[in-house]
């Protein structure tokens, strides 16, 4: 029940990110979610796309170092306490969140979160037990 996120290594220099988005645009790849993590001299772009196979093929051809990571994605009500509810239930089951990021879909009143957890299967189970259904793919129009 996890979603496949693609993590891409980026050099920390002007234009590096642009090269990545350029390749995605050229190949008509639709990014559903995007987040950037940076260290002092390199970065990792984390993206969720409509077509994982096509994207990884394109990235390999273009020489981008990347990996595919399973992450949890869940819709939460765009109201106070929505995120807290999910984190509480993961924490209650001893699941560690390594990082997370939010993105907005096109549905008014809905926000979406991506969670990278130490154990995606257990994380999925925990959310389900608390009545939160993780998304299988990010079709969030």
């Amino acid at each position: 029940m996890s979603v496949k996120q693609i993590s891409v290594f980026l050099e920390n220099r002007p234009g590096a990110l642009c090269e990545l988005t350029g390749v995605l645009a050229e190949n008509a790849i639709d990014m559903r979610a995007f987040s950037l993590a940076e260290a002092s001299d390199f970065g990792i772009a984390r993206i969720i796309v409509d077509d994982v196979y096509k994207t990884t093929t394109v990235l390999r051809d273009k020489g981008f170092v990347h990996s595919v990571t399973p992450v949890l994605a869940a819709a939460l009500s765009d109201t106070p306490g929505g995120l807290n509810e999910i984190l509480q239930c993961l924490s209650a089951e001893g699941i560690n969140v390594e990082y997370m990021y939010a993105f907005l879909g096109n549905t008014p009143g809905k926000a979406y979160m991506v969670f990278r957890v130490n154990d995606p299967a257990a994380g999925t189970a925990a959310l389900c037990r608390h009545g939160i259904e993780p998304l299988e793919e990010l079709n969030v129009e």
Partner: protein
Amino acid sequence: MERYYQPEIETASREQIKAWQDERLVKQVRRVWDNVPYYRKKMEEKGVTPDDIRGTEDLKKLPFLSKADLREAYPYGLMASPLKDCVRIQSTSGTTGKRVVAFYTQHDIDLWEDCCARAITAAGGTNEDVCQVSYGYGLFTGGPGLNGGSHKVGCLTIPTSSGNTERQIMFIRDLNATILCCTPSYAAYIGETMKEMGLTPDQIPLKAGIFGAEAWSEEMRHDIENTLGIKAYDIYGLTELSGPGVAFECSAQSGMHINEDHFIAEVIDPETSEPLPDGQQGELVFTSITKEAFPLLRYRTRDICVLSHEKCSCGRTHVKMSKPRGRTDDMLIIRGVNVFPSQIETVLINQGYPANYQIIVDRVHNTDTLDVQVEMTPEMFTDNMGEITARQKALVDGLRAMLGLSAKVTLVAPKTIVRSEGKAVRVIDKRKI
């Protein structure tokens, strides 16, 4: 069973080797005195005449020759044969200053090719083998030297020269090349390309490689051996002395036997120029005792290494030299510390990084900076930022332990460091002094 190309020479007794050296040195000094005014003048300045040289014990009385002398005497000043007796020139790549042009008589070429044939035989080559020579052909000695050696051994020789890596791989596979001769960085590149093509070592017919003309570490050897599924042998030489084959590795893969019937080796302290005892690290100095056209006496190579007379398991009796631990002119002085690129390479490969790297030295606010750029690989990459930075820190720590100074490590995207088909450019020194 160890094979030798010239067993009676390669396994001769130490006494026999010394006798050859004594006799040939005396003759050579006389010949140079009579035919090379440039060196005769140097001898006169030192108050030495050919009569003072009665054997190898007297070698230390002779003046040194350096690269500066070669430049000064360019092009004909160090020749001992008339041009009409010469049949070939070879030349250095000119990476460190002016080109060196060396001259050969047919006899010189013959002996040089013998030396290369000894190296190929020591790597297991016979007339059953197919030997692909992917060193550059032309002025560079790598291609012509190994090509000649391969003919002498009787290998089917594929003279691909360097470049066009896909064609190289096609020949290796289609014609079942069993021996590859090229620079170690090109061997690594061929290996990397084969891996990308999805080839495993058992699909590659090669069994041995003879790699030289640039410094490479023990770790790089293991890398190349694993990717290509071969035994990788080092070979040493200088255009000034003939070319590859001055020394070569045997089955023991622990140092290179110097062809002492042609070259007398000494190790000196690079500062004081005093000869050092066996086992001490210093600058390698060669005297060529059989060369006709271009005989250099006490030529300072600038290569830092150690000599060993310990008995070798292969049965050869000629002295062994260690892999050069650096070149006096490759040596970088960073914040007052001597740094050899090979030390950095050792740390990188020990920690699982590719042997492809670049060292950038600069000076910022009057302080030298050392930046080691390493390519990120799919094997090393992870989505976990902490893991990558921890590895980066381990590399910084490893470099500090090896070099005694702090370096910056920059991870760069794959294929951004220029691949080389000849000698790799490892160091970019931006310091303006």
